[in-house]
Protein backbone atom coordinates (compact mmCIF):
# COMPACT_ATOMS: atom_id res chain seq x y z
CA UNK A 1 0.00 0.00 0.00
CA UNK A 2 0.80 3.65 -0.30
CA UNK A 3 3.11 4.91 2.47
CA UNK A 4 2.19 8.06 4.31
CA UNK A 5 5.41 9.95 4.63
CA UNK A 6 5.57 13.17 6.59
CA UNK A 7 5.75 15.10 3.37
CA UNK A 8 2.63 13.77 1.73
CA UNK A 9 0.75 13.92 5.01
CA UNK A 10 1.35 17.64 4.82
CA UNK A 11 0.26 17.65 1.23
CA UNK A 12 -2.99 15.84 2.02
CA UNK A 13 -3.78 18.16 4.91
CA UNK A 14 -3.02 21.17 2.78
CA UNK A 15 -5.28 20.02 -0.04
CA UNK A 16 -8.14 19.21 2.32
CA UNK A 17 -7.84 22.63 3.93
CA UNK A 18 -7.63 24.40 0.57
CA UNK A 19 -10.66 22.58 -0.77
CA UNK A 20 -12.65 23.40 2.37
CA UNK A 21 -11.59 27.02 2.26
CA UNK A 22 -12.40 27.35 -1.41
CA UNK A 23 -15.73 25.66 -0.93
CA UNK A 24 -16.91 28.08 1.75
CA UNK A 25 -15.65 31.05 -0.26
CA UNK A 26 -17.48 29.84 -3.36
CA UNK A 27 -20.65 29.18 -1.35
CA UNK A 28 -20.68 32.74 0.00
CA UNK A 29 -19.98 34.06 -3.49
CA UNK A 30 -22.85 32.05 -4.97
CA UNK A 31 -25.25 33.18 -2.27
CA UNK A 32 -24.27 36.78 -2.94
CA UNK A 33 -24.80 36.36 -6.68
CA UNK A 34 -28.14 34.65 -6.15
CA UNK A 35 -29.46 37.28 -3.73
CA UNK A 36 -28.27 40.09 -6.01
CA UNK A 37 -29.84 38.53 -9.08
CA UNK A 38 -33.17 38.01 -7.32
CA UNK A 39 -33.22 41.61 -6.10
CA UNK A 40 -32.32 43.16 -9.47
CA UNK A 41 -35.94 43.44 -10.74
CA UNK A 42 -36.89 45.43 -7.64
CA UNK A 43 -33.80 47.63 -7.90
CA UNK A 44 -34.60 48.38 -11.55
CA UNK A 45 -38.21 49.10 -10.78
CA UNK A 46 -37.88 51.03 -7.52
CA UNK A 47 -34.32 52.35 -7.42
CA UNK A 48 -34.03 55.15 -4.86
CA UNK A 49 -37.63 54.63 -3.84
CA UNK A 50 -36.25 52.07 -1.39
CA UNK A 51 -34.91 54.98 0.61
CA UNK A 52 -37.44 57.76 -0.03
CA UNK A 53 -40.85 56.03 -0.12
CA UNK A 54 -43.22 56.97 2.68
CA UNK A 55 -43.10 53.59 4.38
CA UNK A 56 -43.15 49.85 3.73
CA UNK A 57 -46.53 48.83 2.25
CA UNK A 58 -45.70 46.37 -0.54
CA UNK A 59 -49.36 45.91 -1.50
CA UNK A 60 -49.58 49.65 -2.12
CA UNK A 61 -46.25 49.80 -3.92
CA UNK A 62 -44.30 51.45 -1.08
CA UNK A 63 -40.95 49.97 -0.18
CA UNK A 64 -38.96 52.12 2.24
CA UNK A 65 -36.32 49.98 3.93
CA UNK A 66 -34.59 52.70 5.99
CA UNK A 67 -36.60 52.13 9.20
CA UNK A 68 -35.68 48.45 9.05
CA UNK A 69 -31.99 49.19 8.53
CA UNK A 70 -32.18 51.49 11.54
CA UNK A 71 -34.09 48.83 13.50
CA UNK A 72 -31.47 46.21 12.78
CA UNK A 73 -28.61 48.52 13.74
CA UNK A 74 -30.27 49.86 16.91
CA UNK A 75 -31.30 46.50 18.26
CA UNK A 76 -27.97 44.78 17.61
CA UNK A 77 -25.82 47.70 18.81
CA UNK A 78 -28.00 48.05 21.91
CA UNK A 79 -27.62 44.37 22.63
CA UNK A 80 -23.86 44.59 22.12
CA UNK A 81 -23.57 47.52 24.54
CA UNK A 82 -25.37 45.47 27.21
CA UNK A 83 -23.71 42.17 26.42
CA UNK A 84 -20.10 43.35 26.21
CA UNK A 85 -19.56 44.22 29.88
CA UNK A 86 -21.69 41.24 30.90
CA UNK A 87 -19.64 38.91 28.73
CA UNK A 88 -16.31 40.42 29.74
CA UNK A 89 -17.04 40.34 33.47
CA UNK A 90 -18.39 36.80 33.30
CA UNK A 91 -15.22 35.68 31.57
CA UNK A 92 -12.99 37.39 34.15
CA UNK A 93 -15.08 35.98 36.99
CA UNK A 94 -14.95 32.40 35.73
CA UNK A 95 -11.27 32.54 34.81
CA UNK A 96 -9.84 34.34 37.85
CA UNK A 97 -12.27 34.75 40.74
CA UNK A 98 -14.61 31.77 40.86
CA UNK A 99 -13.32 28.82 42.86
CA UNK A 100 -13.16 25.48 41.14
CA UNK A 101 -16.46 24.23 42.53
CA UNK A 102 -18.22 27.39 41.37
CA UNK A 103 -16.34 27.95 38.11
CA UNK A 104 -17.29 24.62 36.65
CA UNK A 105 -21.11 24.94 36.94
CA UNK A 106 -20.92 28.60 35.96
CA UNK A 107 -18.99 27.70 32.85
CA UNK A 108 -21.50 25.00 31.95
CA UNK A 109 -24.39 27.44 32.35
CA UNK A 110 -22.73 29.92 29.98
CA UNK A 111 -22.12 27.15 27.47
CA UNK A 112 -25.73 26.11 27.75
CA UNK A 113 -26.81 29.70 27.11
CA UNK A 114 -24.69 29.83 23.97
CA UNK A 115 -26.28 26.66 22.66
CA UNK A 116 -29.97 27.43 23.36
CA UNK A 117 -32.01 27.76 20.16
CA UNK A 118 -33.16 31.31 19.50
CA UNK A 119 -36.82 30.34 19.37
CA UNK A 120 -36.61 29.45 23.08
CA UNK A 121 -35.32 32.92 23.89
CA UNK A 122 -38.04 34.40 21.70
CA UNK A 123 -40.74 32.32 23.31
CA UNK A 124 -39.61 33.22 26.82
CA UNK A 125 -39.41 36.86 25.78
CA UNK A 126 -42.92 36.81 24.36
CA UNK A 127 -44.47 35.00 27.32
CA UNK A 128 -42.63 36.68 30.24
CA UNK A 129 -40.56 39.70 29.27
CA UNK A 130 -43.04 41.40 26.93
CA UNK A 131 -45.98 41.31 29.42
CA UNK A 132 -43.69 42.89 32.05
CA UNK A 133 -42.62 45.66 29.67
CA UNK A 134 -46.26 46.09 28.69
CA UNK A 135 -47.02 47.02 32.31
CA UNK A 136 -44.43 49.80 32.12
CA UNK A 137 -45.31 51.05 28.68
CA UNK A 138 -47.59 49.33 26.13
CA UNK A 139 -47.32 47.55 23.75
CA UNK A 140 -44.37 45.78 25.39
CA UNK A 141 -43.10 44.35 22.13
CA UNK A 142 -40.38 46.89 21.51
CA UNK A 143 -36.81 47.80 20.71
CA UNK A 144 -36.01 47.33 24.40
CA UNK A 145 -37.43 43.80 24.47
CA UNK A 146 -35.32 42.95 21.43
CA UNK A 147 -32.18 44.44 22.99
CA UNK A 148 -32.66 42.49 26.23
CA UNK A 149 -33.31 39.17 24.51
CA UNK A 150 -30.43 39.61 22.08
CA UNK A 151 -28.06 40.65 24.87
CA UNK A 152 -28.87 37.41 26.68
CA UNK A 153 -28.23 35.47 23.50
CA UNK A 154 -24.88 37.00 22.58
CA UNK A 155 -23.13 37.57 25.92
CA UNK A 156 -22.10 33.89 26.20
CA UNK A 157 -20.39 34.17 22.80
CA UNK A 158 -18.23 36.96 24.18
CA UNK A 159 -17.60 35.11 27.46
CA UNK A 160 -16.57 31.80 25.89
CA UNK A 161 -14.44 33.55 23.31
CA UNK A 162 -12.56 35.60 25.90
CA UNK A 163 -12.09 32.68 28.27
CA UNK A 164 -10.36 30.80 25.49
CA UNK A 165 -8.08 33.81 25.00
CA UNK A 166 -7.36 34.37 28.71
CA UNK A 167 -5.82 30.95 29.22
CA UNK A 168 -2.72 31.09 26.96
CA UNK A 169 -2.13 34.73 27.75
CA UNK A 170 -2.31 34.06 31.50
CA UNK A 171 0.10 31.15 31.27
CA UNK A 172 2.66 33.58 29.96
CA UNK A 173 2.19 36.50 32.33
CA UNK A 174 0.09 35.61 35.37
CA UNK A 175 2.77 34.03 37.59
CA UNK A 176 5.33 36.60 36.56
CA UNK A 177 2.93 39.39 37.47
CA UNK A 178 2.15 37.82 40.85
CA UNK A 179 5.83 37.26 41.61
CA UNK A 180 6.41 40.92 40.87
CA UNK A 181 3.95 41.64 43.65
CA UNK A 182 1.04 42.72 41.48
CA UNK A 183 -2.48 42.30 42.69
CA UNK A 184 -4.81 40.11 40.64
CA UNK A 185 -6.93 43.09 39.66
CA UNK A 186 -3.90 45.11 38.56
CA UNK A 187 -2.76 42.22 36.44
CA UNK A 188 -6.20 41.86 34.79
CA UNK A 189 -6.78 45.54 34.10
CA UNK A 190 -3.25 46.67 33.28
CA UNK A 191 -1.72 43.66 31.58
CA UNK A 192 -4.23 41.06 30.47
CA UNK A 193 -6.99 43.22 28.96
CA UNK A 194 -4.74 45.69 27.12
CA UNK A 195 -2.78 42.79 25.63
CA UNK A 196 -6.03 41.24 24.40
CA UNK A 197 -7.58 44.36 22.88
CA UNK A 198 -7.81 42.82 19.43
CA UNK A 199 -9.30 39.59 20.72
CA UNK A 200 -11.92 41.47 22.72
CA UNK A 201 -12.99 43.46 19.69
CA UNK A 202 -12.96 40.24 17.68
CA UNK A 203 -15.33 38.60 20.15
CA UNK A 204 -17.60 41.65 20.07
CA UNK A 205 -17.73 41.62 16.26
CA UNK A 206 -18.63 37.95 16.28
CA UNK A 207 -21.43 38.67 18.76
CA UNK A 208 -22.64 41.67 16.76
CA UNK A 209 -22.81 39.58 13.60
CA UNK A 210 -24.87 36.99 15.44
CA UNK A 211 -27.22 39.70 16.74
CA UNK A 212 -27.71 41.26 13.32
CA UNK A 213 -28.54 37.94 11.72
CA UNK A 214 -30.90 36.79 14.45
CA UNK A 215 -34.44 36.34 13.15
CA UNK A 216 -36.85 34.27 15.18
CA UNK A 217 -36.29 35.79 18.61
CA UNK A 218 -36.52 39.40 17.42
CA UNK A 219 -39.53 38.61 15.27
CA UNK A 220 -41.35 37.39 18.37
CA UNK A 221 -40.57 40.29 20.71
CA UNK A 222 -39.94 43.42 18.62
CA UNK A 223 -43.47 44.17 17.36
CA UNK A 224 -42.41 44.36 13.70
CA UNK A 225 -43.80 47.82 12.97
CA UNK A 226 -41.96 49.51 10.12
CA UNK A 227 -41.33 52.92 11.65
CA UNK A 228 -38.32 54.86 12.85
CA UNK A 229 -38.29 54.31 16.62
CA UNK A 230 -38.35 57.45 18.74
CA UNK A 231 -37.81 55.69 22.06
CA UNK A 232 -36.68 52.26 23.22
CA UNK A 233 -40.31 51.43 24.02
CA UNK A 234 -41.30 51.75 20.35
CA UNK A 235 -41.72 48.59 18.28
CA UNK A 236 -39.28 48.05 15.42
CA UNK A 237 -38.89 45.65 12.52
CA UNK A 238 -35.50 44.23 11.59
CA UNK A 239 -34.41 43.29 8.07
CA UNK A 240 -34.38 39.61 8.98
CA UNK A 241 -37.86 39.71 10.51
CA UNK A 242 -39.14 41.43 7.39
CA UNK A 243 -37.99 38.56 5.21
CA UNK A 244 -39.31 35.89 7.57
CA UNK A 245 -42.70 37.61 7.94
CA UNK A 246 -43.45 38.22 4.29
CA UNK A 247 -41.46 35.82 2.13
CA UNK A 248 -43.92 32.94 2.25
CA UNK A 249 -46.65 34.96 0.55
CA UNK A 250 -44.70 37.45 -1.52
CA UNK A 251 -44.85 37.57 -5.29
CA UNK A 252 -43.17 39.47 -8.13
CA UNK A 253 -41.77 42.86 -7.10
CA UNK A 254 -42.63 42.27 -3.43
CA UNK A 255 -40.59 39.07 -3.45
CA UNK A 256 -37.73 40.79 -5.21
CA UNK A 257 -37.87 43.65 -2.69
CA UNK A 258 -37.50 41.12 0.11
CA UNK A 259 -34.37 39.78 -1.55
CA UNK A 260 -33.18 43.37 -1.66
CA UNK A 261 -33.57 43.61 2.13
CA UNK A 262 -31.49 40.44 2.32
CA UNK A 263 -28.86 42.03 0.12
CA UNK A 264 -28.72 45.07 2.41
CA UNK A 265 -28.23 42.82 5.43
CA UNK A 266 -25.45 41.03 3.57
CA UNK A 267 -23.74 44.34 2.81
CA UNK A 268 -24.23 45.64 6.37
CA UNK A 269 -22.45 42.62 7.82
CA UNK A 270 -19.78 42.80 5.13
CA UNK A 271 -19.06 46.45 5.97
CA UNK A 272 -19.01 45.64 9.67
CA UNK A 273 -16.45 42.88 9.22
CA UNK A 274 -14.33 44.98 6.86
CA UNK A 275 -14.21 47.86 9.33
CA UNK A 276 -13.25 45.52 12.14
CA UNK A 277 -10.59 43.92 10.01
CA UNK A 278 -9.22 47.29 8.99
CA UNK A 279 -9.03 48.35 12.63
CA UNK A 280 -7.26 45.13 13.59
CA UNK A 281 -4.67 45.54 10.86
CA UNK A 282 -4.14 49.11 11.94
CA UNK A 283 -3.64 48.02 15.56
CA UNK A 284 -1.21 45.24 14.79
CA UNK A 285 0.70 47.59 12.51
CA UNK A 286 1.01 50.05 15.42
CA UNK A 287 2.53 47.30 17.54
Amino acid at each position, binding site marked *: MYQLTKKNKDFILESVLTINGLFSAIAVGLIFIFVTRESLPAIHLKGWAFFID*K*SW*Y*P*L*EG*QFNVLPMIAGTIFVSLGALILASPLGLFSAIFISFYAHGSLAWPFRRVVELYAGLPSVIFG*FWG*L*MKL*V*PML*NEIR*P*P*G*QSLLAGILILALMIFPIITLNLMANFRPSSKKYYRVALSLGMRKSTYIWSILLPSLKQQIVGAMILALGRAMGETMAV*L*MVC*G*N*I*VKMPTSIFD*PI*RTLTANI*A*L*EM*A*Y*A*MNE*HRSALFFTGLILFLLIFVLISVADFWRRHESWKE
Partner: protein
Amino acid sequence: MIKFTIFIFVFALVTLSFPLNAKETIVITGSSTIAPTLLDLAKLYEAKNKGVRIDVQTGGSSRGVADVRKDLAKIGMVSRALKADEKDLHAFTFATDGIAIIVHKTNSVSELTKEQIVDIYKGSITNWKVLGGADQKIVVVNKAEGRSTLELFIGFFGLKNSQIKADIVIGDNEQGIKTVSTNKNSIGYVSIGTAEYNASVGVPLKLLNFQGKSAKVENIKNGTYPLTRELNLITKLKPSGSIEGFIKFVLSPESTHVIKDHFFVPAY
Protein backbone atom coordinates in the same frame (compact mmCIF):
# COMPACT_ATOMS: atom_id res chain seq x y z
CA MET B 1 -20.14 -5.69 -21.16
CA ILE B 2 -20.63 -2.83 -23.58
CA LYS B 3 -23.71 -4.48 -25.04
CA PHE B 4 -25.13 -4.85 -21.55
CA THR B 5 -24.47 -1.19 -20.75
CA ILE B 6 -26.19 -0.10 -23.94
CA PHE B 7 -29.10 -2.38 -23.16
CA ILE B 8 -29.48 -0.88 -19.67
CA PHE B 9 -29.25 2.63 -21.11
CA VAL B 10 -31.89 2.02 -23.77
CA PHE B 11 -34.11 0.18 -21.33
CA ALA B 12 -33.91 3.05 -18.85
CA LEU B 13 -34.63 5.60 -21.56
CA VAL B 14 -37.66 3.72 -22.81
CA THR B 15 -39.15 3.02 -19.41
CA LEU B 16 -38.55 6.55 -18.15
CA SER B 17 -40.00 8.23 -21.20
CA PHE B 18 -43.30 6.37 -21.20
CA PRO B 19 -44.88 7.83 -18.08
CA LEU B 20 -43.50 11.26 -19.03
CA ASN B 21 -45.29 11.14 -22.36
CA ALA B 22 -48.44 9.75 -20.86
CA LYS B 23 -48.74 12.50 -18.23
CA GLU B 24 -51.50 15.01 -18.67
CA THR B 25 -50.87 18.45 -17.19
CA ILE B 26 -53.61 20.49 -15.55
CA VAL B 27 -52.65 24.14 -15.16
CA ILE B 28 -54.30 25.94 -12.25
CA THR B 29 -53.83 29.67 -11.65
CA GLY B 30 -55.28 32.34 -9.39
CA SER B 31 -55.62 33.35 -5.76
CA SER B 32 -52.53 33.10 -3.55
CA THR B 33 -54.84 32.39 -0.60
CA ILE B 34 -55.93 29.13 -2.14
CA ALA B 35 -52.68 28.12 -3.84
CA PRO B 36 -50.89 26.58 -0.82
CA THR B 37 -53.92 24.40 -0.06
CA LEU B 38 -54.27 23.32 -3.67
CA LEU B 39 -50.56 22.55 -3.90
CA ASP B 40 -50.94 20.08 -1.04
CA LEU B 41 -54.12 18.64 -2.54
CA ALA B 42 -52.44 18.37 -5.94
CA LYS B 43 -49.57 16.37 -4.44
CA LEU B 44 -52.04 13.97 -2.85
CA TYR B 45 -53.97 13.63 -6.09
CA GLU B 46 -50.84 13.10 -8.18
CA ALA B 47 -49.71 10.35 -5.84
CA LYS B 48 -52.97 8.52 -6.45
CA ASN B 49 -53.29 9.28 -10.18
CA LYS B 50 -49.89 8.71 -11.74
CA GLY B 51 -50.97 9.92 -15.18
CA VAL B 52 -51.81 13.44 -14.07
CA ARG B 53 -49.49 16.34 -13.31
CA ILE B 54 -50.93 19.44 -11.70
CA ASP B 55 -49.22 22.79 -12.09
CA VAL B 56 -50.38 25.40 -9.55
CA GLN B 57 -49.47 29.04 -10.18
CA THR B 58 -50.50 32.18 -8.30
CA GLY B 59 -51.30 35.66 -9.47
CA GLY B 60 -54.50 36.65 -7.73
CA SER B 61 -58.17 35.82 -8.16
CA SER B 62 -58.59 38.07 -11.19
CA ARG B 63 -55.78 36.32 -12.98
CA GLY B 64 -57.54 33.03 -12.26
CA VAL B 65 -60.68 34.33 -13.95
CA ALA B 66 -58.81 35.82 -16.90
CA ASP B 67 -56.68 32.71 -17.47
CA VAL B 68 -59.66 30.37 -17.42
CA ARG B 69 -61.51 32.59 -19.90
CA LYS B 70 -58.51 32.61 -22.25
CA ASP B 71 -57.96 28.86 -21.84
CA LEU B 72 -54.50 29.51 -20.40
CA ALA B 73 -55.55 27.56 -17.32
CA LYS B 74 -57.97 24.67 -16.99
CA ILE B 75 -58.96 25.60 -13.46
CA GLY B 76 -58.96 28.99 -11.75
CA MET B 77 -58.71 29.76 -8.04
CA VAL B 78 -60.94 32.60 -6.84
CA SER B 79 -61.04 33.57 -3.16
CA ARG B 80 -64.35 35.46 -3.32
CA ALA B 81 -67.85 34.97 -4.63
CA LEU B 82 -68.16 35.29 -8.41
CA LYS B 83 -69.25 38.69 -9.66
CA ALA B 84 -72.40 39.19 -11.74
CA ASP B 85 -70.47 39.28 -15.03
CA GLU B 86 -68.63 36.07 -14.15
CA LYS B 87 -71.71 33.91 -13.81
CA ASP B 88 -71.00 32.19 -17.14
CA LEU B 89 -68.15 30.31 -15.44
CA HIS B 90 -68.67 27.13 -13.44
CA ALA B 91 -67.81 27.68 -9.78
CA PHE B 92 -67.21 25.04 -7.10
CA THR B 93 -67.04 26.32 -3.53
CA PHE B 94 -64.80 23.90 -1.65
CA ALA B 95 -64.16 25.85 1.55
CA THR B 96 -64.79 29.05 3.48
CA ASP B 97 -62.20 31.33 5.04
CA GLY B 98 -63.31 33.17 8.17
CA ILE B 99 -61.56 35.33 10.73
CA ALA B 100 -62.26 35.87 14.39
CA ILE B 101 -61.54 39.10 16.27
CA ILE B 102 -59.74 38.06 19.45
CA VAL B 103 -58.89 39.76 22.75
CA HIS B 104 -57.45 38.56 26.07
CA LYS B 105 -59.80 36.42 28.16
CA THR B 106 -59.87 38.99 31.01
CA ASN B 107 -61.11 41.75 28.70
CA SER B 108 -64.65 42.73 29.71
CA VAL B 109 -65.58 43.75 26.15
CA SER B 110 -67.30 40.89 24.37
CA GLU B 111 -68.78 42.44 21.27
CA LEU B 112 -67.72 45.11 18.79
CA THR B 113 -69.44 46.64 15.79
CA LYS B 114 -67.93 47.11 12.37
CA GLU B 115 -67.52 50.86 12.99
CA GLN B 116 -65.80 50.34 16.33
CA ILE B 117 -63.30 47.94 14.80
CA VAL B 118 -62.55 50.40 12.00
CA ASP B 119 -62.03 53.15 14.60
CA ILE B 120 -59.72 50.96 16.68
CA TYR B 121 -57.58 49.97 13.72
CA LYS B 122 -57.46 53.52 12.32
CA GLY B 123 -56.38 54.78 15.72
CA SER B 124 -59.39 57.02 16.48
CA ILE B 125 -60.31 54.85 19.48
CA THR B 126 -57.19 54.15 21.56
CA ASN B 127 -58.55 53.25 25.00
CA TRP B 128 -60.69 50.29 26.09
CA LYS B 129 -62.63 52.64 28.40
CA VAL B 130 -64.45 54.13 25.42
CA LEU B 131 -65.75 50.65 24.55
CA GLY B 132 -66.83 49.82 28.10
CA GLY B 133 -63.61 48.11 29.13
CA ALA B 134 -60.82 48.97 31.54
CA ASP B 135 -58.93 52.26 31.37
CA GLN B 136 -56.08 50.83 29.32
CA LYS B 137 -54.47 51.72 26.02
CA ILE B 138 -55.53 49.40 23.20
CA VAL B 139 -52.67 47.40 21.72
CA VAL B 140 -53.56 46.87 18.06
CA VAL B 141 -52.22 43.67 16.51
CA ASN B 142 -52.13 43.52 12.71
CA LYS B 143 -50.94 40.93 10.20
CA ALA B 144 -47.91 41.15 7.93
CA GLU B 145 -48.50 42.10 4.30
CA GLY B 146 -49.25 39.32 1.88
CA ARG B 147 -51.16 37.22 4.42
CA SER B 148 -54.62 36.26 3.23
CA THR B 149 -56.20 37.04 6.61
CA LEU B 150 -54.96 40.62 6.28
CA GLU B 151 -56.45 40.83 2.79
CA LEU B 152 -59.81 39.57 4.01
CA PHE B 153 -59.74 41.87 7.02
CA ILE B 154 -58.91 45.09 5.19
CA GLY B 155 -61.21 44.14 2.33
CA PHE B 156 -64.17 43.57 4.64
CA PHE B 157 -63.64 46.76 6.62
CA GLY B 158 -62.77 48.87 3.58
CA LEU B 159 -59.38 49.84 4.97
CA LYS B 160 -56.02 50.32 3.34
CA ASN B 161 -53.11 48.77 5.21
CA SER B 162 -51.39 52.16 5.36
CA GLN B 163 -54.36 53.57 7.29
CA ILE B 164 -53.97 51.02 10.06
CA LYS B 165 -52.16 52.27 13.15
CA ALA B 166 -50.81 49.00 14.50
CA ASP B 167 -48.64 48.50 17.59
CA ILE B 168 -47.58 44.97 16.72
CA VAL B 169 -47.35 43.14 13.40
CA ILE B 170 -47.42 39.37 13.44
CA GLY B 171 -46.79 36.59 10.97
CA ASP B 172 -48.73 33.39 11.33
CA ASN B 173 -51.87 32.59 13.31
CA GLU B 174 -49.93 30.95 16.15
CA GLN B 175 -47.91 34.09 16.76
CA GLY B 176 -51.16 36.04 16.83
CA ILE B 177 -52.59 33.69 19.44
CA LYS B 178 -49.45 33.97 21.62
CA THR B 179 -49.30 37.75 21.29
CA VAL B 180 -52.94 38.36 22.20
CA SER B 181 -53.07 35.73 24.96
CA THR B 182 -50.09 37.30 26.74
CA ASN B 183 -51.18 40.91 26.43
CA LYS B 184 -54.28 41.92 28.40
CA ASN B 185 -54.90 45.07 26.35
CA SER B 186 -54.49 43.70 22.88
CA ILE B 187 -56.87 43.07 20.02
CA GLY B 188 -56.06 41.00 16.97
CA TYR B 189 -57.56 38.72 14.36
CA VAL B 190 -56.75 35.20 13.21
CA SER B 191 -58.42 32.37 11.30
CA ILE B 192 -61.48 31.12 13.16
CA GLY B 193 -60.34 27.49 13.14
CA THR B 194 -57.13 28.33 15.00
CA ALA B 195 -58.76 30.70 17.48
CA GLU B 196 -61.55 28.28 18.37
CA TYR B 197 -59.12 25.41 18.88
CA ASN B 198 -56.80 27.43 21.14
CA ALA B 199 -59.63 28.85 23.22
CA SER B 200 -61.01 25.33 23.67
CA VAL B 201 -57.72 24.01 25.06
CA GLY B 202 -57.52 26.75 27.67
CA VAL B 203 -55.43 29.49 26.06
CA PRO B 204 -56.64 32.76 27.68
CA LEU B 205 -58.41 34.13 24.63
CA LYS B 206 -61.82 35.52 23.91
CA LEU B 207 -63.40 35.40 20.46
CA LEU B 208 -65.50 38.54 20.13
CA ASN B 209 -69.02 38.42 18.81
CA PHE B 210 -69.27 40.35 15.63
CA GLN B 211 -72.51 42.07 14.65
CA GLY B 212 -74.44 39.87 17.04
CA LYS B 213 -72.98 36.59 15.79
CA SER B 214 -70.52 34.52 17.74
CA ALA B 215 -67.34 33.52 15.95
CA LYS B 216 -67.73 29.79 15.54
CA VAL B 217 -66.92 27.38 12.74
CA GLU B 218 -70.57 26.35 13.05
CA ASN B 219 -71.74 29.87 12.22
CA ILE B 220 -69.49 29.90 9.16
CA LYS B 221 -71.04 26.66 8.00
CA ASN B 222 -74.59 27.97 8.35
CA GLY B 223 -73.58 31.28 6.79
CA THR B 224 -74.63 33.62 9.60
CA TYR B 225 -71.15 34.88 10.57
CA PRO B 226 -70.32 37.78 8.26
CA LEU B 227 -66.50 37.99 8.34
CA THR B 228 -65.93 35.32 5.73
CA ARG B 229 -65.32 34.69 2.07
CA GLU B 230 -65.82 31.66 -0.12
CA LEU B 231 -62.96 29.84 -1.76
CA ASN B 232 -63.86 28.73 -5.28
CA LEU B 233 -62.46 26.67 -8.08
CA ILE B 234 -63.73 27.78 -11.49
CA THR B 235 -63.77 26.27 -14.96
CA LYS B 236 -64.90 27.62 -18.31
CA LEU B 237 -66.77 24.52 -19.47
CA LYS B 238 -68.49 21.86 -17.46
CA PRO B 239 -65.51 19.87 -16.15
CA SER B 240 -64.81 16.44 -17.64
CA GLY B 241 -62.08 13.83 -17.61
CA SER B 242 -59.16 14.39 -15.26
CA ILE B 243 -60.27 17.95 -14.47
CA GLU B 244 -63.58 16.63 -13.22
CA GLY B 245 -61.64 13.97 -11.32
CA PHE B 246 -59.51 16.53 -9.52
CA ILE B 247 -62.41 18.84 -8.67
CA LYS B 248 -64.39 15.90 -7.33
CA PHE B 249 -61.38 14.98 -5.23
CA VAL B 250 -61.13 18.52 -3.79
CA LEU B 251 -64.84 18.47 -2.95
CA SER B 252 -64.68 14.99 -1.40
CA PRO B 253 -64.25 14.12 2.29
CA GLU B 254 -60.75 12.86 1.38
CA SER B 255 -59.50 16.44 1.11
CA THR B 256 -61.06 17.89 4.27
CA HIS B 257 -58.07 17.29 6.54
CA VAL B 258 -55.77 19.20 4.15
CA ILE B 259 -58.25 22.10 3.99
CA LYS B 260 -58.49 22.15 7.79
CA ASP B 261 -54.67 22.13 8.04
CA HIS B 262 -54.74 25.45 6.22
CA PHE B 263 -57.34 26.80 8.69
CA PHE B 264 -60.19 26.96 6.22
CA VAL B 265 -63.62 25.48 6.78
CA PRO B 266 -64.29 22.69 4.29
CA ALA B 267 -67.60 22.88 2.44
CA TYR B 268 -68.13 19.13 2.76
